[in-house]
């Protein structure tokens, strides 16, 4: 029996197929979920992939937050189910308040698409166990609303509790406070990040490296040990 990882598609999601492929590449079963389904089909974990759900019309991720599937995701996440939000998925997680803070337009106002160096600051979350503490990874980044903000009190709390999971290395591409690229909730089962690990799981595409594969193998480790 292999672990079942749900990948949600909202109207405007772009990276659901890449994410499903990454899940399969890691040896897991990918279960497509539709934004209007309340039923999570008994998946072991859920990924909210990148894209522009509902066109980001109000704010990035704001409208998806009220879709039927998210009610179930919020309930399950609070009960401990692993949830990963990538890019737009991270924006949705902040809008649901499963993760603190908010995402804003990049400080330079440009859409960016680049290979981005990250430092893994916490290798103990559900989604980062295949990495080493302090490991440097290189995965693609592509967004226009990638500037992470939160008030000082929340930022201090995130730092103190080890919930800054990834930091931008060498270059902060969007003005995110304290170079934050990804964070987790207090329990470590919910993780969000702006760069795209699902685009770096096979040597032929993306960065030419497979630095993103660790996210998907991490979840297998977590589910096997749970």
């Amino acid at each position, binding site marked *: 029996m292999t672990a079942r990882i749900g990948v949600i598609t909202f109207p405007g999601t772009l990276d659901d197929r890449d994410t499903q492929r990454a899940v399969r590449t890691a040896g897991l079963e990918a279960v497509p979920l539709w934004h209007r389904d309340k039923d999570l089909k008994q998946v072991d974990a859920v990924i909210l992939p990148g894209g522009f759900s509902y066109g980001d019309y*109000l704010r990035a991720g704001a409208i998806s937050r009220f879709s039927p599937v998210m009610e179930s995701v919020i309930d399950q996440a609070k009960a401990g189910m692993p949830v990963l939000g990538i890019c737009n998925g991270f924006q949705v997680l*902040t809008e649901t308040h499963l993760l603190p803070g*908010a995402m*804003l337009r990049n400080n330079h106002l440009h859409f960016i698409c680049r290979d981005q160096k990250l430092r893994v600051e916490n290798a103990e979350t559900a989604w980062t166990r295949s990495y080493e503490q302090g490991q440097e990874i290189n995965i693609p980044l592509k967004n226009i609303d990638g500037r992470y903000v939160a008030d000082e009190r929340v930022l201090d709390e995130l730092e103190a509790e080890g919930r800054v999971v990834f930091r931008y290395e060498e270059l902060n591409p969007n*003005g995110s406070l304290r170079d934050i690229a990804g964070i987790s909730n207090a329990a470590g089962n919910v993780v969000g990040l702006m760069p795209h690990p699902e685009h770096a799981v096979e040597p032929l595409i993306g960065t030419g490296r497979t630095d993103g594969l660790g996210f998907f193998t991490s979840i297998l480790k977590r589910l096997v040990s749970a």
Partner: protein
Amino acid sequence: MARVVVDVMLKPEILDPQGQAVQRALPRLGFEGIADVRQGKRFELEVEGPVDDAALARIHEIAETFLANTVIEDFSVKVEVGEGADTTAVKAES
């Protein structure tokens, strides 16, 4: 039908690069003396039925849960009185 206006602005402490880009363009266009620009959103809600306290409370809830992200934004709710008449501020949130 009555119109209720919800204005949403980034909180003062949040960097607004869009507003800054507009402000920096002004001198190039020959408009001097504008020290700062901040950009926000305005929602005009056409309300069926009377805009009583209950209706305003509902709109307030819409603004707080959906139209504004109160982590980064402030909002205000105003009822527009009559055709093109001035507006009455009924609630300002910080």
